[in-house]
């Protein structure tokens, strides 16, 4: 039970991050983070 509780969130979170970053890179957005001060220039609202 302990294994399941730990492994599932790790796998899901990893998959989410990978997919989100791949989408960002494909769209030409920065993939670091929305809060990154430097990247604000490319991540902000158009």
């Amino acid at each position, binding site marked *: 039970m302990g294994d399941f509780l730990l492994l599932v969130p790790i796998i899901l979170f*990893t998959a989410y991050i990978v997919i989100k*970053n791949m989408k960002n*890179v494909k769209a030409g957005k920065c993939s670091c983070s929305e809060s990154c001060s430097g990247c604000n220039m490319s991540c902000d609202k158009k």
Partner: protein
Amino acid sequence: MGHSYALTGNPNSGKTTIFNELTGSAQYVGNWSGVTVEKKEGFIKNSKINVVDLPGIYSMSSSSIDEVIALEYITEENPDGILNVVSASNLERNLYLTLQLMEMKVPVLMILNMMDELSRKNIKLDVDRLKEIFDIQIILTGQNDRKNLSRIKEIDLKGLKSNFARFSYFSKEIQDGIREIASHISLQTLTQYKADPQWLALKIMEGDNKIIEACCAKDAAIIEKAKAIRLIIEKSEGVEFSQLLAAQRYSYLGEIAGQVLIDADGNMDRESVSEKIDKIMTHRILAIPIFLGIMWTIYYITITGLGSKSIEVMEWLISDLFTGAVKALMVTMDVSTWLQSLVIDGVIGGVGAVLVFIPQIMILFFFISILEDSGYMARIAFVMDRIFKKFGLSGKSVIPMLVGSGCSVPGIMATRTLENERDRKLTILLTPFISCGAKMPVYLLFVSAFFAANSHWVVFSLYLLGIVTAMVSGVVLTKVRYKGVESDFILEMPPYRVPALKSVLLHMWDKGKDFLIRAGTIIFAASVIMWFAQSFDLSFQMVQDPSTSVLADFGRLVAPVFAPLGFGDWITSVAFITGFVAKEIVISTLSVLHGVSQGALGSSLTEFYTPLSAYSFMVFVLLASPCFAAISVMKRELGSWKETGFSILYQTGTAYLLSMAVYQIGSLFIK
């Protein structure tokens, strides 16, 4: 229904500070030009008024991308009004933009900023007279006095009219030309392109291609007529039409300045404190040693001084305290041994290896933002401009490279201020050579393991190597690929200011937060993937020894490529490749694959590298192609995969050759 206002102003007029103040945002502010290169938007606090912060521009032409962004927004989005930030400390030049906005016949509210700087010089400004001339409302504000800004909410700009006598300062021929062309602009054009006909006429006469394309490209007759008038005027005056317009506008603004600025003590012509400081800071001989001295001191404090203590504290926090607690919890939860390894060696090992360096990164950016806010960064651009010109690069390339020392992504974006396409492409290619913040943890790990006594010297040398490589590449590429003449560079020297603590801390926190978020997302994900890849073989069987894993098989395939660089092992090869995702992942990969905690990673590396191969490794990390985020922005800004591919190949090829040179030549002397 709320209103929409556009915020415009010259670079470094305090526009972004006012935007932050109005909207409660925390956009980055710097005491130098070119901080805003894209439009940003937000709502004025406690109101439905939407404000769009446009890039800082000097005029409403379309010669560079930042000017096009501002011009397109005003002409195509038709905001209800313009909030025009004007720096009182440089009135004449700032009013040049105001004059052009008035020519567009759009509702303008002037925010007269930096009034306190004018007071410090004991110069008075007749605001009532200025109001009278432009027939607009003016709000006064200063660096330490923003309370008047709340009045913006009370003023409805929509439909606001001004009786300002626009175009009256132009010669009769130009005024007649404007009237003539305006009378020929069709109703259909004005319905489609909602702009004032006389302003449109002036732009067509100027030959502004962006505007002509947008409004009346099909109306060949009007374009020809405007061109004919322009040529007649140019012939009779003997200067280019755009220069004539600028000269007549400036002559008028000179008269306005004479009427509104009261300089009883003659302080305007007196040498200011900033000018006195600049005599030393931008001195022909002293400037470069001063710049190098400042950067060396920053690296010394960050790495050897304050920073080295922070590593010990962070290692204790992560390796002992946090890891110990998590391990105890997992034992209590009866978690399997392999899953414990995933969490401890994979997640905490990988993420923790980067987190250890966060305080040092924050200290570094504390000092960098002091340089920016004080106005010294603009001086660095000025000093570097002299050198860059000798290498065939435009001085304007300096600004993106300085921005790129934080992160390559905004550095590449900052190339939008370059009008010349050749300069822009070249600068996009060269900016990633400048050491960015994400590479810093890699250096910190290696210098602490191999060069403990001279760590700041080594990191400083890498910083210089990045600059020198960019300059030498500039020479090579302008000869073979980006031929042409570099454009001139007009640089505004902002006055020196005592950095605002809030702004410095905000910038420092932003950098720290950025690293924390990256550690919790992309580095977390990469560490988990690395752990799985080093735990299974090709037949999906779990392995005890990572050197028999599928990742090791892949690493061994690539390893011979890196052997001439001094590190032909599979772990380093994999670390390099994962570094393309994000540079910090190099560390988390090394940590996971070496299977050691943050504290022991340094000593584990000493078994694999010599100081020479460690330096060669850092050179490769410094110069090789930037991370995916920067590559995707490069592609967007270059607009072609061909150009982007060439940039990646050039950067990685240069990294490979220099890294190999370091190792091979170094091996002749160091055994």
